């Protein structure tokens, strides 16, 4: 479904992504693990069209995506929950969710999906009229995830959803990701530093080091891999 071929991307003179090829199949959860500064977020920003893909190709189905405007990419069904959540701080919870559905026009469907995310995260329903900026970190992550779901994505790009959250909240968020994947067949590309959690819910994984894919394989295989254990799992 999503295919990256020799992608190169970066900010200014810094080439964070040097040469990345990977593939995400329909219905999978694929994770990309890597240390701080290995270029994970840059890669997601390139897929979403926020920064240009300098070399290589990004394919979605059989359409080339590099060079498309970000709103076109969202329209194709690729939604990102960026690192740090990026809640619109002075829009209410409700308005944040509305923004997630910005490109949709099916009023009834939007209403349904809003009820659905409220059922996933009842706390958001409780706080629907509160400004997004007043939520706690965990609530903001729930809102960020819900906002992306409001677009009814085909492919969900998640950038470090566990960052800065309490273990219990992380567990809840990952359960929901798994649930969305199995119930709605939403394909998930999950970028994580928290390799342990990520590999546990993923089907397959890639390891990014210095802007290149260093390892790849099934999630179970990577969990057993001594190099991964040493570098990312702290075993």
């Amino acid at each position, binding site marked *: 479904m999503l295919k990256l071929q020799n992608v190169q991307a970066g900010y200014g003179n810094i080439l964070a992504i040097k040469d990345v090829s990977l593939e995400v199949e329909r219905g999978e959860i694929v994770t990309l693990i890597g240390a701080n500064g290995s270029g994970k977020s840059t890669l997601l920003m390139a897929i*979403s069209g926020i920064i240009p893909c300098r070399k290589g190709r990004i394919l979605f189905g059989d359409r080339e995506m590099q060079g498309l405007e970000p709103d076109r990419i969202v329209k194709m069904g690729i939604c990102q929950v960026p690192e740090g959540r990026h809640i*619109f701080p002075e829009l209410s919870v409700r308005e944040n969710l509305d923004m997630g559905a910005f490109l949709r026009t099916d009023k009834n469907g939007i209403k349904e999906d809003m009820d659905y995310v409220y059922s996933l995260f009842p706390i958001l329903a409780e706080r629907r009229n509160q400004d997004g900026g007043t939520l706690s970190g965990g609530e903001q992550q729930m809102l960020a995830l819900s906002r992306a779901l409001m677009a009814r994505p085909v492919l969900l790009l998640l950038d470090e959803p566990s960052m800065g959250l309490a273990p219990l909240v992380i567990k809840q968020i990952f359960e929901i990701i798994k649930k969305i994947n199995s119930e709605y067949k939403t394909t998930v590309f999950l970028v994580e530093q928290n390799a342990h959690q990520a590999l546990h819910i993923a089907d397959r994984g890639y390891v990014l080091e210095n802007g290149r894919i260093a390892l790849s394989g099934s999630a179970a295989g990577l969990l057993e891999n001594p190099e991964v254990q040493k570098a990312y799992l702290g075993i």
Partner: protein
Amino acid sequence: MNYFIELFFSGLTRGAIYALIALGYTMVYGIIGLINFAHGEIYMIGAFTSFVVASVLSIYGFPLIAIVIMTGFAAAVWAGAYGYTIEKLAYKPLRHAPRLSPLISAIGMSILLQNYVLLAQTSDFLPFPKLIPDFPFMERYADVLGSSDLVILLTTTAVMILLTFLIKYTRIGKAMRATAQDTTMAMLVGINVNRIISITFVIGSALAAIGGLLIASHIGQINFYIGFIAGIKAFTAAVLGGIGSIPGAVLGSLVLGLTESFATGYVSSDYEDVFAFSLLVLILIFKPSGLLGKAVIKKV
């Protein structure tokens, strides 16, 4: 007491005009962080467009009310087109340049537009037709509030209500707020940020043009230079209220208008600008983010 009330209303009227211009400054700043120094010129172009359209329409003998509405509409659309074009030509290519570059481009645009109107029109003051008649029912209050002051206040109030509604409840308005709060995220939810920026320029310019029409008819003359001082004053008002904040721009404008009016009335009209800018200096010293502005906390 009558004198006080008269000064109060004349201050409100001034403030209302400043507000129509200040909104353009503050909305553009809110979205792209740029002080659009060419904005005062848009107001001037609005006044000139009104002059041309109103003159032509009155030759054809349209009733006054029709002239006012059509002139206002034409000025708003034409100025909106200017705002749109200016953004595309002078600011969009510099979107990722250092912050100083678009600012200098804005100053250049301002000088260009002034001189263009100077060459295309005239350096003399042009008499502006009186579009707002003296209403008979206002005669009793004529010593405190003139008819055109009343029209200015009512029009501005109506425009503010419309704008508030637009920004608070419509899809475009929410997208404007979202873009102002987090541009990258706005792109990630599928908002076409370039289009939102264009819309912001068009709305701001249309408001300034309506201000240009109202004040030109109120004062009765225009020239190519009126945008400069009005622009600086409205900018002052926007900073006073907290640049980037829409209610702030309105509040700052009213405070500035009233200050000027009372200073003129009770001290001397020579000191009008002294009071206006002293107020700005005081606010900047004691509340640098403006009356309703938020202190910006930069994460490092």
